[in-house]
């Protein structure tokens, strides 16, 4: 979108990422933590797309240009796929834990302590 500097997109992505990080640390419900992770992933996606659209470094040939425009979108696709798989497995794990103990407070899942 013309007239919008790259800083705006990156800033938004950075903000979302930070929010996700804080959420992971702050929240106790594993599902919300998952949501925060998704948030982070999406901020990264936004950053990728923004960089793919705003070609900062001048590229030599049109082929290189197309390639570099495509790379960002490809990575975003793969990130989405990985996120989908991750959510499927993660939610399965949460269900299993919940079935095991009627409580999914993440601070009570501390069996793996030294």
């Amino acid at each position: 979108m013309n007239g919008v500097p790259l800083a705006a997109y990156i800033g938004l992505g950075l903000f979302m990422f930070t929010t996700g990080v804080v959420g992971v640390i702050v929240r106790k419900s594993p599902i919300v933590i998952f949501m925060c992770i998704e948030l982070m992933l999406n901020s990264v996606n936004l950053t990728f797309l923004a960089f793919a659209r705003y070609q900062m470094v001048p590229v030599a040939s049109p082929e290189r240009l197309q390639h570099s425009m495509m790379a960002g979108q490809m990575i975003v696709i793969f990130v989405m796929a990985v996120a989908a798989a991750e959510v499927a497995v993660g939610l399965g794990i949460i269900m299993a834990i919940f079935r095991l103990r009627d409580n999914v407070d993440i601070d009570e899942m501390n069996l793996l302590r030294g």
Partner: protein
Amino acid sequence: MNYESIWLVLLFPILGFLIQALLGTRIEKTLGRKVLGGLAVLPIALSFAVGLVITLGTKGGTSNTATIGQWINAGNLSIPFEFIVDPLSMTMVLIITGVGALIHLYATGYMSEEREYARFFTYMNLFIASMLLLVLGANLLLLYVGWEGVGLCSYLLIGFWYKDLANAKAANKAFIVNRIGDWGLSLGLMLIVVFLLSQGNHVQDGRYLSYDTMLPALQNGLAANPAMATAIALLLFVGAAGKSAQFPLYIWLPDAMAGPTPVSALIHAATMVTSGVVLLNRMHVVFEMSPVASAIVCVIGAFTALFAALIAFGQTDIKKVLAYSTVSQLGFMFIACGAGAYWAGMFHVTTHAFFKALLFLGAGAVIHAMAHNQDMRNYGNLRKYLPITFWTMVVGTLAICAVGIPGVFGFAGFYSKEAILGGALANTHAQINGVQLGQISGWVGLGVALLTSIYMTRLTCLTFLGSEERWRAIPAHTEEHHAEDHAENSDTHHALDENHTPHEVPISMWLPLVVLALLSIGGGYFLANGGAFEHWLYPSGLPVLGEVSTEPTGIPLAMYSMIAALGGIALGLVFYLKGLPKNQGFDESQWLGLRRAERDQFGFDNAVTVAAVDGGGDIARGLWKWVDVALIDGIVEGFGKISGGLGELMRRWQTGYIRLYALMMLLGLVGLIGFFAIVFQRGVR
């Protein structure tokens, strides 16, 4: 069928092995043992037929190499997968497959009451395959593969009745002692490669270990430095001595008699133990280069022959006697090889394969008939019960005693032994600075011939002549492993006691006896007249050997050996015709000291075993205590303790709270990025 199709010879036993290994038990269950045995004998017979055809097509002196494919390519060393077809290899092929087929046929009868029929024939076929690979492989590495293969098979077969400890121990002993020989062989191999590489003469397309290129290269290279020749030759001889049970390393062969008798006949008399001789024949150029090594071979062979022949007197186990006679015959072969009469060695290998296999199989028949009792003192008057076995074994005895009328006719052993002694007495090659050790060992061999005919006569007399009281009298005693291993129909395996009546063996067992008997009667005559065998094997003659001398001291050599043979037989008859002498009975305390010493192999075996086992044990224990436990474990566990302590410190941080971990990660991230930010700011300014 030309030499290109030699791989068929190797193919059949491998197929048989696979059939036996994969389908054996199923075939045994469904089609029965006869079919299984047939399937075991058939491949060997087939490859014998193929080998026969190819042999007829092989002219003397020709050497063809049939390459199947590339095997190893390492740097400029390339080992193709190739077979050599020349008189030497074909001779061995015929011996292996022919005698092997007969012995397989015998074994189908002999093992018919044993457990794990299929496993036995699996091993047997595998042995034939690896032995064929040993003799057919056209480079030393293939020979080495076959070498190890036969070692493995002999181990497996000695320990076939692995359930009782003695057999297992014997198998281990054989394997370990063979290791020493193989160590020597492998060192010789490497030394050859290193030497040829150092020579810098790039053997054609890098086939450093293939005979057709290696032997000429060695001949050219070793002429320059005989020391290297001696080294290579001695290393190879160590290998040969290990496999063919020469003096220091013979100790495994007598114990190897723990295996089933067909195994003893095939592996430990006819084929495998002669592979050392085959090796020496293959590499004879090396030995021709170094008189010292040849002399050593001669001396070792002669000493072994004498030593083993003496020991044979002290043995009461029929198979042990035969085993020691095998060792001493092998000694003869080595005398020949050392003396440069390589063809004589091979000749003796051939004839020895005939009569020694015959003798073993006969002994097996006797043992079979006597309820697996192997002590000769329990036998007697068996000719009444086992006529075929008796007559065939008589033939075998005469053959091994080298009975013959010079110029007219002789049994198989006669000609080969003549050749050996003649070659030894004639040669001037095996000598260390002037001392003609070769000729000395030739005379020694003559003496050994005498001893041989004595103890062989002893064996025959004790077994077949005399009276039955010896086994009628003895109380019933059973041997332990038969209880479990022969359990198939154990009523036939009742103990040896007064109401025991031996029975003649079935046809599948006496047919091979007859065939081998015929061979040991006529084989030598056929091969020897006109020097057919010699000229087939080495048509161009042998460079280090002049002519086999027929009268070294004016008196024809044949006379000496005839006297030796007949005299020995006469002595033996004098001693043993009327049965077991008093001072050789079950009460061994009445024995002569000499005989008792011979029974204990002059303490050599004990000494070696004690030195090797206990000394080695002490060394190992010391290493374990001081090096392993104290040093290495100390270091390792020290590290373990250190890290354990550190972990103990770090453990407190692992609270199990994921959020805390995330917090730590974030802390590190912020710290790192902040640090870099500051650094970059500095860089900017």
